[in-house]
């Protein structure tokens, strides 16, 4: 019982700490990281938590090594995570792609700050929306979860482990400085089901095992070192036996399965929040912390008689396209409010089906978009008709 709120199981928690605790609750037993603002509290909390539960915390020599060590630990068979911010996320891209290609589960947290370059280390931004989708080279499967509150950071970090293990692919958790440093009173959600979700391990006769032959869900069982399978893992394009190939039909089959396994499991991956969208004339699309401002703006606009709604993708990538289309079917206007110069707006313009007019509301001055900003843009858009 919390003496301040009178509620059971509530706790005062910082966003970054919630991320660390959500990871441990989901069964994370390895973290490798490098100090970087504004994500360092994730590493600091795990440096305390992990050894106390028999897990491993490693401060590596750089961001690249952190990503590599995280994948190395996961190749050994345990749930592993790393966390960083923009500049570090850029450095991790090559090895993140290795995880996607070689199908090694792990969770990568990016607490966004202003960019480009060193940018605004202690100020929020959403400038990495497209980097999470296209950051590493070549075609690749991507799953990105974008929580919008401290409670959701805890829950989505735990969920990221479950998705990552189940689909044998890295999952990115994306939020920003303002959420990472936000302290809220939260009720910790039950994440036991996420904790129980572990990857499919290879069983049976080693001679019959094909390390890159997908099951019906597109995901191949993984061989645990020491279990007698003695497989080869490579960043090269491989055939089903795990060894490099350049045969066009084998390359094509691998790529189709790799990219397809995310689409095949979209029901499991998709998540979003829709507020008052059913009859909305104008739908605001907002991600993470901006969703909070948008929720307030929608409430106040409704009170003023304006039919506004909010669509907030919690799963950013793959974008919840069909759900978005359903939720915005009646809208005449879509406003994409994002803390960058315009990134998510490109996806919205591409996936919308109706004649909705798409307008961007952008801030990249290190200040979160406010309800006032959103209401002003809604009124401008409607007034211009």
């Amino acid at each position: 019982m919390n003496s301040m709120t009178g509620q059971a199981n509530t706790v005062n928690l910082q966003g970054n700490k919630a991320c660390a605790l959500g990871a441990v609750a989901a069964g994370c037993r390895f973290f490798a990281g490098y100090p970087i603002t504004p994500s360092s509290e994730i590493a600091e909390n795990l440096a305390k938590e992990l050894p106390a539960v028999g897990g491993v915390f490693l401060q590596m020599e750089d961001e690249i090594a952190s990503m590599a060590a995280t994948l190395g630990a996961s190749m050994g068979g345990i749930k592993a995570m790393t966390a960083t911010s923009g500049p570090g996320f850029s450095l991790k891209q090559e090895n993140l792609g290795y995880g996607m290609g070689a199908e090694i589960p792990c969770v990568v947290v990016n607490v966004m700050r202003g960019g480009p370059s060193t940018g605004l280390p202690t100020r929020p931004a959403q400038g990495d929306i497209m980097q999470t989708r296209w950051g590493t080279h070549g075609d690749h499967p991507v799953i990105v979860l974008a929580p919008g509150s401290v409670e959701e950071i805890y829950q989505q970090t735990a969920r990221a482990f479950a998705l990552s293990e189940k689909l044998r692919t890295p999952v990115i958790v994306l939020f920003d400085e303002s959420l990472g440093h936000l302290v809220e009173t939260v009720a910790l959600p039950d994440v036991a089901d996420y904790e129980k979700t572990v990857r499919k391990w290879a069983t049976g006769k080693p001679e019959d095992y094909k390390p890159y032959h997908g099951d019906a869900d597109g995901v191949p069982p993984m061989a645990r070192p020491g279990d007698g399978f003695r497989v080869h893992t490579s960043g090269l394009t491989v055939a089903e036996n795990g060894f490099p190939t350049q045969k066009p039909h084998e390359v094509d089959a691998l790529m189709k399965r790799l990219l397809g396994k995310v689409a095949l499991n979209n029901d499991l991956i998709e998540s979003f929040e829709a507020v008052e969208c059913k009859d909305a004339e104008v739908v605001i699309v907002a991600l993470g912390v901006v969703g909070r401002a948008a929720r307030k703006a929608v409430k106040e606009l409704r009170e003023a008689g304006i039919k506004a709604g909010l669509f907030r993708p919690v799963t950013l990538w793959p974008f919840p396209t069909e759900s978005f289309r359903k939720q915005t079917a009646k809208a005449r206007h879509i406003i994409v409010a994002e803390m960058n110069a315009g990134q998510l707006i490109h996806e919205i313009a591409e996936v919308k089906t109706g004649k909705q007019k798409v307008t961007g509301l952008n801030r990249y001055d290190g200040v979160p978009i406010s309800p006032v900003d959103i209401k002003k843009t809604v009124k401008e858009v409607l007034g211009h008709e």
Partner: protein
Amino acid sequence: MNKQVALKADDAKKTADGKEFNIRDYLRLDLFPHFMCPGCGHGIALRALLWAIHEQGIDKDKLAVVCGIGCSGRVGGYIDANTFHTTHGRPLAYATGLKMARPDLHVVVITGDGDCLAIGGNHLIHAARRNLDITCLMLNNEIYGMTGGQGSPTTPRDRFTTTTPAGNREPVFDACKLAEAAGAGYVGREVTIHLPRLRDLIAGGLAHKGFSFIEVMSDCTEVNGRKNDLGSSPEMVLGQTRTMRPPDYEYDSNVVDHPFRPSGLHTGVFVQSDRPEYGAAYRDMSEKLQQGRTKP
């Protein structure tokens, strides 16, 4: 501590169970023929490694071989073990995560002069400093072979490569001194022509509890030897041996009068220390924390 590895009288050594070494027991023979060029020293290094693994009685199921990118990076794939072909320069970082997660595995890293000293140099010095129980074999062929013969951090002075068309003017790295200075617990260098000595050097690394760094002087006949008129493979390895010096040999100057290389080559075991191994130290701390004996 300088110590020369003595030649063993009986090279066909046996393991405790008396089984003689047969390289075929340790190879993925269905992948043959292998990718290595005729005359390449990497195959000899591979044989020495497998022989040492056999002598140490290491179970293939518990052996993890982590490689980077380049000619050295492709060597591990032929080993019938848990093999990981990772990204350029990063095998030590992958191996660090793997070894911390799975202390029950024997983790061997195979890397090259470009992989380990250029793009991955930071990971080498920190792996040596951390002193985790990993055996690192750096196959030094003094060139980027896989990409077509560019100069590397160990390309000798005046050597012609595709990126030093007028002869190399950059100084070279002494990888063993680097590893020693950074704290590696076991450091040594050997040439491929002395296979039993190389085998014993590697076996010493496998047996050592901590980070062991072994530099194998390999030879690249195709894109290094040919371009510099260093002769065929036998001539190249003979060139290596003629510039070899024991660990305690003191040069009057660093110049050796031999066309193969401008400076002499120390071989043998240079460092053998009992610095605390990091994995054990970490687990000791973790166990105490789990029992609540010390506060974090």
